C-alpha cells in the first residue's frame, strides 16, 4: 500500500453549513466522511461524493470535493459511471436508507456483485426524513409513521445480510454516535479495493422517535471488541448480521480481497478512459470499415 499523505480535515470543509435539524445523526456522518477521507489520504480534487435525494443526500454539498447530488435512488449508478470513466478518482457514495435500500435497491445489489471500487455510506435513520416521516425499507415492523399510522406491516430489510449475500467485499456498520469509529471504517472502506458498504445508524431526531441515539447507545457493541471475531469468515458475519435486539453489532462484519470490476475490464488496462486520445487510430478505424465490405 502506498504511504498515505493525510491532508488536514479542514481541506474538506465545504462552503455551506448543513441545514439538517439540530441533533440530526447526519452531522456525525459528515464528520466521519471528512475524517475518513483524510485518513485515507484522499485529496479533495480527486474525490467525488455522489448522493441521491434525501436529507442525508445533501451531504456532498457540505464537503469541499467534487460531487454529484443526483436523483433519488440513482447515486450508485451515477457513481459507477464516474468510476468507470476515471478510475483515478476516489468515488464515495452517500445517501439514505430510502434512497439506497428502497428506490435504489436494484443498483445497490448489482453494484455489489460487480465489485466496483466504490465506498457506500448509508445514513440509515429507518425513516424517510426529507419527505417528513414515512416508513422506509428499514423501518421496524409495527412502527407508526406518517404512511403507516396503524403500524408498519412489512418486515425491514437487513442491509448487512443483503450485502453479504450479494458479493460485497467490505461490509460494515457504524453509529453516528461514534464518529471516530465510523471514520476508521470509512477510511478503511475507501482504501479497500472493491465495493465497501458502511451502513450507519444516523438517527432522525425529528421523525423517528423509536430508533434514537439512546436506543442505539444502549444496544450497540463493537465487533472489534469481540474476542476472536474474524471478518474473513462470511458465515460468522452472516450470523452476526441477524443480531438485533438488546445487542446490535457495529464494526467490520466482513472483508475479502476479490478482483475489482475495473481490474477485470481489459479496456481499462491502458488507464482511465478520460485520459485516452479522443481520436481513434486511423488503422483501427479503417479495419472497422473493411469489415463491412
Amino acid at each position, binding site marked *: 500500500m502506498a504511504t498515505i499523505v493525510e491532508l488536514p480535515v479542514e481541506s474538506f470543509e465545504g462552503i455551506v453549513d448543513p441545514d439538517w435539524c439540530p441533533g440530526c445523526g447526519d452531522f456525525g456522518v459528515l464528520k466521519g466522511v471528512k475524517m475518513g477521507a483524510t485518513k485515507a489520504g484522499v485529496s479533495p480534487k480527486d474525490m467525488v461524493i455522489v448522493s441521491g435525494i434525501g436529507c442525508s443526500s445533501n451531504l456532498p454539498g457540505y464537503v469541499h470535493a467534487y460531487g454529484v447530488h443526483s436523483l433519488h435512488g440513482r447515486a450508485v449508478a451515477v457513481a459507477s459511471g464516474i468510476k*468507470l470513466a476515471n478510475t483515478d478518482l476516489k468515488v464515495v457514495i452517500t445517501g439514505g436508507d430510502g434512497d439506497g435500500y428502497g428506490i435504489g435497491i436494484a443498483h445497490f445489489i448489482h453494484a455489489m456483485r460487480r465489485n466496483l471500487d466504490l465506498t457506500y455510506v448509508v445514513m440509515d435513520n429507518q425513516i424517510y426524513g426529507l419527505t417528513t416521516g414515512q416508513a422506509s425499507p428499514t423501518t421496524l415492523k409495527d412502527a407508526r409513521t406518517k404512511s403507516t399510522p396503524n403500524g408498519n406491516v412489512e418486515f425491514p430489510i437487513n442491509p448487512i445480510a443483503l450485502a453479504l449475500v450479494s458479493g460485497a467485499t467490505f461490509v460494515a456498520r457504524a453509529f453516528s454516535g461514534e464518529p471516530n469509529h465510523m471514520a476508521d471504517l470509512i477510511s478503511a472502506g475507501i482504501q479497500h479495493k472493491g465495493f465497501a458498504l458502511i451502513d450507519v445508524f444516523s438517527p432522525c431526531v425529528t421523525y423517528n422517535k423509536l430508533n434514537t441515539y439512546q436506543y442505539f447507545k444502549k444496544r450497540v457493541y463493537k465487533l472489534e471488541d469481540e474476542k476472536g471475531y474474524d471478518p474473513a469468515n462470511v458465515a460468522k458475519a452472516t450470523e452476526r448480521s441477524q443480531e438485533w435486539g438488546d445487542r446490535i453489532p457495529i464494526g467490520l462484519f466482513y472483508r475479502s480481497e476479490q478482483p475489482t470490476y475495473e481490474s477485470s475490464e481489459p479496456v481499462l488496462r491502458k488507464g482511465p478512459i478520460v485520459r*485516452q486520445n479522443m481520436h481513434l487510430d486511423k488503422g483501427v478505424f479503417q479495419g472497422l470499415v473493411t469489415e463491412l465490405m
Partner: protein
Amino acid sequence: MNDLTIGIGGAAGDGIDKSSETLAKTAARSGLYAYGFNSYQSVIRGGHIWLRLRLREERAYSQGDHLQALIALNQDSIERHAPEVESGGAILFNADKLKVNIAIRDNVLTVPLPVGQLTKPFAPVAPVMQNTVAVGALIFLFGLDFAVSSGVLADTFSHKGKAVIDQNVGILKAGYEYAKEHFVPLGYKWNFSGKRRPYVTGNEAFCMGAVAAGCRFYSAYPMTPASGILTWMAEHSERCGVVVKQMEDELAVANVAIGAGFAGARAMCATSGGGFALMTEAIGMAGMIEAPVVFIEVQRGGPSTGIPTKQEQADLNQVYGASQGDFPRIIIAPRDTADCFDTAVEAFNLAEKYQCPVIIISDLLLSEHPETVEPECFRADVPIDRGALLREVNAKNGRYKRYEFTPSGISPRALPGTANAMYVAATDEHDEEGVLISDVFCNPAVRRKIAEKRMKKLALALKELPAPRLEGPADAEVTLIGWGSTAGVIREAVEQLNASGVRANQLHFKYLLPFHQKEAIDILKSCKRTIGVEMNASGQFARLLRAETSHAVSDKILKYDGEPLEPAAIAAQVRAILKGQAHSLDVSQSEAREIAYHYVRVYLGDEVRPGNIGKAESNGYGEPIWNVEIVNRETGAKTGELRVGVQTGSTYSWQPVN
C-alpha cells in the same frame, strides 16, 4: 437503369440472412448499390422471414416496391410471393422439395434447381448451403459477377478454413453452371463501377460515428431494435477502447452514462421506447446538471411492448416530453444510414458544446436495415469539439463557478480531478457555484436567471444547425413532409409522382429540437398543399410542426401496421388525395384474407387456409362483412366460413361446414 429486387422467403434458421449478404456484398464490391430489408412474413404458420434486397447502379433509397427475383426456400414463400414476381423476372427454388403450384405472371422464368444432385459432390452438405445453389444460379441469370461472389464467400468463411471455403464456392459454382447450361441470362447488363462500398446498418453506422467521435463509454440494457448497438460495441470494445457496460435496467444505463459524461468521458447509451421511458428522469438530470450525454432511441412498433420487431415512428411525443420541467435538450432524427454516422459525431459535439443531453431518434428500419454507403462517409478524422472545457483552473481568479451566468448561457466546465474547481453538480436548483437554492432558501431571482441561462443554450445551438430546405421542384403542386428515416422512401415517392406528371417536392426534418421555426414557416408559406407522411397513428410530427409553425398539413398519410412505407403506395395515396378521394379505413379484401390467415393460424390449425372472399351487407353485425371461405390446404374443399367486419375488422363468426 437496372433496378433489381430479389426476395428471399423461408423459415427462421434457413440462412436467409447469409444468402442475402452474399448477394449484397457481391453487388457492393462490384460497384452496385444495395438496400436490404428483412420483414417477417405475416401470414401462414411458422416464423417466416421475407427479406428483400434491392440492387441498382444508382443509390436505392428504400426497399422499393417491385420484385424481379424470388428465391423460395419453402412452399409458403412460393404460395405467397411467386405471383408478385414481375415480367422478365425469375423464381428459383429447390425442385427436390418445392413446386410452383400457383398462377404466376407472364414472362416469368421458373428455375427449378435439382439441389440434391448439384450438391452431392460436396457432401456432407448442411441444409443452409442449399441456398447457395440458388444464389449461384441467380448470379448467372441476373448478370452479377461470379468471381466477386466467390471472393465474398471466401472472406465469409475465411475463419473456417480452406475446405469450407472450397465447399461453399463449389456449390455456388454448381448453381451458376447449372443455370448457364439450362437458361439464358435475363438481360441485365450492369455497369459495374468497381467501387467497393461498405454494406452497413444504421446501428453500425451509429457505432462507427460514436467511436470516431471519441465515445469511450457505452452502457446498455438489451432491447430490440437497439440491441445491435450493444452487440457491435461489445465486439469492438477492446479494439476501440470503449468501456461497454450492460446494466441491470435502463434506469442504471442512463445514470451510469451520465456519471461517465460528468466525469469527462464521451458517453452514449441506446434503447427503444420502453427502455427510454425508464431513462426519462435521468435525462432531466443531465439537463439540470448540464452533463453531456448522447442517447439513442430506436423506435419500434408501440404502444407498450407493442410489436417489437416492427417499424414505427411513434415515440416522438415521448422523446419530446422526456422528463419534467423545462430544460435544454437536442433531438435529432437522422435521415439515412450514412447520416447515422454524421449524426453520432454531431451529437457528441453538440452534447459537449451545449452541455446537455442529445437524443438521436432512430427507428427499426433505419437501425436494422443494411445498405451500401459511400466509403467516404466513414472518416476517422471527424471534428471533435469539446466546447468550453477547462484544462486547468487558476485559484487566483476566485472560486470556480461551474454554472457561471454567462451571456451565452454556456458555463466553462471543469472535470473532477482538476485542482481548484471542486463543485457539486446538483439536480436541485442551484446558484452559479452549484450551491442549492431549492431548499427553504429558494431565491426567486437567482432561480429565474439560472433557468434562463440554461434555456439560452438552445437558441444558440439552433444557430449552428442546418435549416430544413425544400427538395424537388419549387413550384410543386404538393409537398410531402416527413422526418427521420422516411427521407428516402418519400424521395422515391416524389420521383414517381413527378415522373407520372404530378409535380411534387419534399420537405424533410432532421433537427426537431431546437426547431427552425422561422425557416420552416417561410418554406411552408410557399407550399401549395402539404401532406404529412409518417409512420404512426396520430401524426405526431404533424402535430409538432403545427406547434412550431401553426401550419396544419392539408392531409396525412399515416402507416402504423408495422411494415415500412413503400414509395408506390405513398404516391398512390397522394394521387388519391389530390383527386379528393376520401381515405377509407375499411378492411380491404386482401386485408380480410390476412385477418383470416391469422384466425386460421391461431384457432383452426395448419390444414386450412382462406379461399374465396366476398363482401356482403351486414346481417346482424351492424356493418358490412367479408365472407371468407376457409378451405382445406390440400383438397381446396370448403371447411367453413369466417365473417370479418368491413369497418371494424372483427372476426364475427366462424361457421364450420357441417
